[in-house]
């Protein structure tokens, strides 16, 4: 897999969440994703960006346009230095939340992507990778 280009954005405030949505939309358009696929990856990014701000205390997003031999994709990696997630499997379950949300963010975002990975340990922050192929 090769990275064609990349960009890093801060994810620290509510305004940044809006900017993340707009930037991910622009990248998905440039990669010629269909409208439904665009909407899915932007929505997934919005969910994870909010987690980064609310639970992770802020962090950053790295966007990468990638390709393998046959296709192109958009990979988003959110990283924060927050308290981390004690039980990732539990956090992925619909309806589970330690905050005031609906508990749909992580599990929902996973369903909206082709590949999804959460790397987190208590005290060591959280890294969430989302990938959607075109």
């Amino acid at each position, binding site marked *: 897999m090769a990275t064609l280009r990349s960009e890093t954005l801060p994810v620290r405030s*509510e*305004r940044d*969440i*809006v900017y993340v*949505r*707009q930037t991910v*939309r622009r990248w998905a358009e440039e990669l010629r994703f269909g*409208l*439904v696929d*665009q*909407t*899915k990856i*932007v*929505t997934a990014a*919005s*969910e994870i960006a*909010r987690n980064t701000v609310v639970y992770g205390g802020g962090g950053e997003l790295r966007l990468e346009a990638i390709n393998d031999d046959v296709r192109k994709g958009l990979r988003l990696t959110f990283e924060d230095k927050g308290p981390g997630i004690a039980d990732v499997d539990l956090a992925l379950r*619909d309806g589970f939340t330690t905050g005031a*949300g*609906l508990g*749909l*963010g992580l*599990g*929902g*975002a996973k*369903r*909206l992507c082709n590949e999804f990975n959460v790397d987190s340990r208590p005290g060591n922050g959280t890294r969430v990778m989302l990938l959607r192929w075109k």
Partner: protein
Amino acid sequence: MERIPILRMGPFLLVTIQVDMHDRLALTLQDDLTAKIASTGAKGVLIDISSLEVVDSFIGRMLANISAMASVLDAKTVVVGMQPAVAITLVELGLSLPGVRTALNVERGMDQLHRALGGTEKRGVNEPARQDAERGDIAQ
């Protein structure tokens, strides 16, 4: 402070969301709408989201909250104009907005609100009578 405008039209309140809302703006709209229902005694709320390209769980929850709060205040809410890609994504996300009435467009949404209001109150006084008269004219 930034706000989404709320228009009053007879017994209804109309809101058109045309910007990509940050979370606090969505919460402000929720509060403003609830306050306005209470202060005007509105019987219906129509929320046009046809310009929204993304509805994530936060915005989805706001729509469900508005609908529930309005219901407690004796007003019906209809969310209209959801883009197909947004609908597909919302359901996959796990949010099917139970308890939120929807309509394809503003016109059908207004129809729903008028029907919910029924032949009672404001509508009952004038319009049915006029309709009867018109029907009478045609018959002649």
